[in-house]
């Protein structure tokens, strides 16, 4: 596949350089580690620092969500690979204000180990308290009975939003973690893959799929989904995704939700809005109120084709968090 890059080995470093150069009012790179970025828009009332991170290739996630109302800092990994403990620890030190730091990341083996090691180091070497919340929103990645095995996909955006708002409300460490866990608990996603992405280093497609096929439940790194079938219409796909989500979480007539229709990298906005249209129709038919909707590329997989649907069931506290303004380089909400 074609890529507009200089050299595959430099993609992550050059992306970070360009990002820092493009947003000098928002972002600074720590002198101690070039994979550690922190916000210049930190809310002065925040007690607890929010740290996010993960592999590269998911932009705007994760570095695009560092800013006012969201994360204070990010540790950037190689493509589709967790960052190592060092950049995580450096960000932790930079954003701790004495009341601790909360790590938010998707439930992947690598992230769990690296963030876990960094948390141990923060505690032992720096005496900084670390709270953690893992995101497990992908209903296709494991059965409900094994929910702790589920991976985090687009729902990570809602968890960052909830935790970021909670930190802005002046919550302490335990309450920020509680809020992030509540957001995760109330969030479900499911995706469909149409075309693969390719890693800059290998150039090979991440999975194989026929011209007329789609893969339901596809993961954010091209992990195979739950079934491969003939490509169907946007309405049928939206119905399938919403049906599987609602089979997994109880959302009833009269409930409020936030909706995210997320593009995986190369799907046009046109198609995302066509999907959104059907999602809203279905929820309306069920008497579920859409409190706020988000449509666009929020967490991608390089140039992968396809999308995911995410619903977060809202209580009053989560509504307040969803409503809370955000000002980040890759996401602004007034």
């Amino acid at each position, binding site marked *: 596949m074609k890529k507009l890059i200089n050299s595959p080995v430099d993609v992550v470093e050059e992306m970070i350089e360009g990002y820092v150069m493009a947003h000098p009012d928002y972002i600074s790179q720590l002198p101690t580690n070039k994979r550690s970025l922190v916000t210049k828009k930190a809310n002065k009332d925040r007690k607890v620092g929010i740290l996010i991170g993960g592999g590269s290739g998911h932009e705007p996630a994760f570095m695009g969500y560092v800013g006012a109302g969201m994360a204070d800092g990010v540790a950037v990994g190689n493509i589709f*690979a*967790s960052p190592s403990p*060092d950049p995580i620890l450096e960000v932790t030190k930079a954003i701790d204000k004495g009341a601790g730091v909360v790590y938010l990341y998707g439930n992947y083996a*690598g992230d769990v*180990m690296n963030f876990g090691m960094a948390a141990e180091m923060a505690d032992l070497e720096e005496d900084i308290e670390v709270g953690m919340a893992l995101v497990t929103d992908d209903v296709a990645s494991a059965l409900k009975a094994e929910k702790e095995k589920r991976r985090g996909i687009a729902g990570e955006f809602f968890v960052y939003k909830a935790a970021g708002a909670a930190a802005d409300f002046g919550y302490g460490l335990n309450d920020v973690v509680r809020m992030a866990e509540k957001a995760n608990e109330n969030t479900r996603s499911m995706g469909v893959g149409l075309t693969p992405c390719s890693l800059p280093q290998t150039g090979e497609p*991440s999975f194989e799929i026929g011209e007329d096929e789609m893969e339901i439940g596809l993961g954010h790194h*091209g992990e195979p989904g739950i079934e491969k079938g003939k490509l169907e219409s946007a309405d049928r796909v939206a119905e399938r995704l919403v049906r599987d989500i609602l089979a997994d979480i109880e959302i009833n007539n009269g409930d409020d939700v936030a909706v995210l229709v997320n593009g995986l990298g190369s799907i046009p906005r046109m198609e995302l809005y066509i999907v959104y249209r059907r999602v809203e129709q279905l929820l309306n038919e069920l008497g579920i109120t859409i409190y706020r909707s988000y449509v666009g590329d929020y967490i991608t997989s390089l140039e992968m084709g396809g999308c995911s649907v995410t619903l977060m069931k809202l209580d009053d506290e989560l509504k307040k968090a969803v409503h809370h303004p955000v000002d980040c380089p890759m996401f602004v909400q007034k």
Partner: protein
Amino acid sequence: MELTAREFKAYFKKVIDMIEAEKDYLCELDRKLGDGDHGVTMSIGWQAVKAKLDNDLVDEEDCGKISIAVGKTFLNAVGSSVGPLYATGFMRGAKIIKNKVVLNGEDLAYFWVAFGNGVKERGKAKVGDKTMVDTLDPFVNVIKNKYDGTQDFLQLFHEAVTAAKEGMHATKDLASRKGRSSRLGERSIGVQDPGATSAYYILATFLEFIEDYSRKVS
């Protein structure tokens, strides 16, 4: 069998060359099970180790310090899941050979046992989960159960690597229960695990290295 820091470092350089040669094959295995980058990840990590060996470690004679530096350098370069796994392995191994400038058969035997146990402990995978533990566990067991300080280390290591190879081959018929490929379930059967494969190569490279070395010195 005795290795000085010079040979210990030469072994790591042999691993670096081996990974470059096997990079594409490891990616190919991983494309069928994960995101297709295992060879790339290993290469990024070992190339960083190469830079470390060629610079900071050139005059280092403490094998324990070399092992710590290899683990930490690999970890910082890759993160991912293999980063913490190999880093923990080499750091646990380093404890065994702390302050040693020469490694004898006994040191090496316990170094590799600590390495394998460290990986296992960090990743929390069990035999049969289709991971590098399927290679490392039988390997560690041969050394642990048979070594009493009197055997010929080379012979014993040969036996242990043979067990590792069988463990690696066995991953082909297993359904994955750990890591990203575990989401595949039954669909992962039929492909040899890339992590088990690279772990075998790292052990087999050590066997090759000590075989060549003992031929040279005898």
